[in-house]
């Protein structure tokens, strides 16, 4: 191994050193011995970390936030969606990477005593509407068809960029749905529904078209856990506010505005997210603990069996923020050697899960040389039997049984 430089720089190593930069700075002068050995050790580390840098999971973040219900008394669903929008924007995802779908306009509703505001806390502590909200799908545009088209990318060519989900195979997508739901469906606009099977198929389409790297699905409706029961595509993690058979409850009414302002799950989710900043190290296990049964009355659920990484190693900012990995170095790194893929060592020593690869979309060779499928023989069903019995009966009625002797 050739070393062409000495490495001074500041490394922002996520997995090798658990502390942040300041800790490392403290460490460096103490332990620094200007010896060849240490230089060699450091450069190997830098190559490893460079390897890690180029083999990381995602490179961009998207968010699709949907509120599916309209009417003034569903104020809380709009407030839910806007509070997640606010958190996601604050943590770094720009408006160009957020698709916000609101089915009704609460801020400018005639019944709103505080026009142009949507509050999430009573006594009007927090206005989640602000003055830089960018709604991409509004009012009657929020339909099941539009939602599925956004997810799968099958939009007419005239659709503007702000209404498209232009994700690629390195995108981490956050999908947040809220509204009224039931066992296996979510109601859109009081007139149509999306079922859990449709949603699962949409995600599978996204997987086959390489439209996501990892996907976090959060749903805050009644019986929300039923919506992620049918997922079968890899790299999906799902959270729901209530189990099948339970209702998600709303948090608190505001007496001046006259409606309930937020749902409980999203209220505590917002409180949790307010503590997250772009450099935060909180992981998914903390997110699963949001809103226990004592606060939420319903039991939140989550699903991680389709997700490849360990939830404990997935940062919140992987989905909610748009955190760039930055390494500032004054030295040049020699990249002539091929970068080795760093083997992930699972924390509990489990067997490494099998790697998922993309499906061969059109197996042409198989189709061309296909043999006709042999149909299994089934005994005749009741209708045929009945028909023949009828014919026989008529025959014997007409000709009498005594003719049987002549026939046979």
């Amino acid at each position, binding site marked *: 191994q050739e070393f062409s430089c000495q490495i001074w720089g500041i490394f922002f190593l996520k997995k090798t050193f658990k502390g942040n930069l300041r800790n490392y700075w403290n460490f460096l002068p103490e332990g620094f011995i200007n010896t060849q050995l240490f230089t060699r050790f450091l450069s190997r580390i830098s190559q490893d970390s460079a390897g890690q840098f180029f083999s990381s999971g995602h490179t961009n973040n998207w968010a699709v936030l949907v509120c599916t219900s309209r*009417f*003034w*008394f569903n104020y809380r669903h709009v407030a839910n969606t806007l509070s997640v929008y606010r958190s996601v924007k604050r943590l770094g995802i720009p408006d160009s990477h957020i698709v916000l779908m609101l089915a009704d306009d609460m801020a400018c*509703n*005639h*019944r*709103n*005593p505080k*026009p142009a505001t949507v509050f999430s806390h009573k006594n009007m502590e927090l206005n989640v509407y602000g003055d830089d909200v960018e709604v991409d799908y509004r009012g009657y545009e929020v339909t099941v068809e539009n939602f599925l088209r956004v997810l799968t990318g099958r939009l007419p060519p005239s659709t503007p960029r702000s209404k498209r989900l232009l994700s690629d195979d390195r995108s981490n997508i956050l999908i947040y749905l809220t509204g009224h739901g039931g066992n296996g469906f979510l109601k859109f606009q009081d007139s149509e529904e999306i079922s859990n099977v449709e949603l699962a198929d949409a995600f599978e389409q996204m997987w086959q078209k390489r439209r996501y790297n990892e996907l976090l699905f959060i749903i805050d409706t009644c019986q929300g856990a039923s919506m992620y029961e049918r997922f079968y595509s890899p790299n999906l993690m799902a959270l729901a506010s209530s189990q099948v058979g339970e209702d998600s409850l709303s948090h608190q009414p505001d*007496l*001046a505005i*006259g*409606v309930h302002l937020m749902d409980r799950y999203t209220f505590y989710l917002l409180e949790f997210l307010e503590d997250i900043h772009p450099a935060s190290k909180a992981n998914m296990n903390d997110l699963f603990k949001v809103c226990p049964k004592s606060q939420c009355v319903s039991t939140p659920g989550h699903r991680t069996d389709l997700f490849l990484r360990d939830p404990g190693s997935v940062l919140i900012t992987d989905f909610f923020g748009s955190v760039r990995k930055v390494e500032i170095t004054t030295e040049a790194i020699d990249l002539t050697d091929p970068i080795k893929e760093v083997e992930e060592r699972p924390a509990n020593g489990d067997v490494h899960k099998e790697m998922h690869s993309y499906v061969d979309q059109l197996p042409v060779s198989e189709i061309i040389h296909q043999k006709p499928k042999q149909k299994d023989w089934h005994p005749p069903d009741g209708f045929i039997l009945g028909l023949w019995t009828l014919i026989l009966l008529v025959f014997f009625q007409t000709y009498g049984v005594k003719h049987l002797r002549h026939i046979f």
Partner: protein
Amino acid sequence: MGLLSDPNRRRALINLLTRLNAPICGMPVEWLVKTMQARGLEVYTQRFSRTLPFPDENKERYMVKGTNVYGILRAPRAPRTEALVLSAPCTPGDNNNQAVGLLLGLAQYFRNQIYWAKDIIFLVNDHDLIGMQAWLEGYHHTNTTGMDWSPLQGRGGSIQAALSLELSSDVVTSMDLVLEGLNGQLPNLDLANLFYAFCQKIGVLCTIQGKLQRNDWDSVSGYSHAVQTMMLMVMKQASGRPWGDHGLFLRYHIEAATIKGINSFRQYKTDATTIGRLLEGMYRKLNNLLERLHQSYFFYLMPSLSHFVSIGYYMPAFGLLAVILLLRALDLWVQLATPPPTTEDGIADIEQSSPGVLSVLTPLVISHLTGAALYMLPIRFQEMAVEHFPVSETEAVVLTAIAVYTAGLALPHNTHRLLSGEGTEQGWRVLKLVALLYLAVLLGCTALINFSLGFILALTLVPAAAFVTPHVPKVLSAFVLVILSPACTLLFSVFFFQELQEMPVSFLDGWLLYLSVISQGILDHFLYGSLVYPLIALLVYPCWLLFWNILFWK
């Protein structure tokens, strides 16, 4: 937050109310217009006039003239597609001055809020129901009762809900909710539930039928209290008259109720500000509505404000009564179909066993002609009656009606002279079959529209119809049949109603009350289109006459 948390507003309202304590002669149109305009409403007036079919004892004249005044509070940001109405009838004297004052105070408060999504129309109507009918007809561009009114200059969109206020004194101890409307129509139960929920929230005592709710449902006295309340509602619904100004809104599918303030001299008194808060809360809730109230029941009976009996529970009771008639008819059909056992000549049997529908036609036609006479004669001949008898017009009408009714009792003897000697066994069977089916259809249709009326008629007429034949003892059954006739049912209902309201009357007072009820019924029919009087006169009475005919079949 809410009405009159601001002491200035409270003072203004109290000033207004004390000013209005002075009796108002007629309707102070100019003052109302000025006051409403000062509060920022768009004010319009409507003149109307009506010729009564006969001068009512209250009005004592043929022509009623008046002016309605209404102010529209436009919603600040909403399109003018929907409206709510708050009305207070202004009657001469100090009958309802408090309500007008409260209405104006509320108008001023509502004007300062920005969360109204519907226009609010503050209506002060003259002459109670007549003015309300004129205003509604003008608003909806219909003219069903032949009234003469000037067209409305200002309109607000389709009305979603309406409340009518009746406050007679400035000291109120409880609020009464009145639901029964024209022809027994009721508003959506959600409106009653809304009122009750708000009363409980604010801590105001609220009643229905003037009776307070009791907590002991299981005890006998608690149960009988609930039954009494429900019977009061049945009586009121059966009368078919609107028991408040709200009753006329229901016909246009506008959910409406009347709120009356009652002073029953309790220790705990409520003042106008609390009532104002109650109304403010109700209007805010109605404002949040996105569609007309339709989720709850339209057909119900209320034994108390927190309990109701829905149509699914009370209709089977009526159905069982109607089945009696159908079974009887079936029995008669079978009797008619089987030939009599002792016959020798086949041809004569055929002639005898099928008297044909035509023989039935004669009693039918004559009964209905009598009914038509009962419907038309009292109004037509009131002048003639006044000339010949020392009675007022109202009494003339009523007494003519009773006279025609009683004259109908003498019919069977005359009918049979017209019939070509029919008096056969099969004849009365056919007639009874037709009459039973007719009664069943009639009662069924009535119960669908106005359940209480149908049920009360069924209770009295079904036993009569079932048992009457020419072979029962004549005198006794004639007496029973007269007792069960619609007129006597009405007489008993009047006494029963007074009993239920804990104001029992002597026989003479009851009789006078009965006469006034008949005149009110006739007047309601001509003024607002109430269907009770034509139903009884043109359909139920002839049906009863058919059974009377059968009783005296020779």
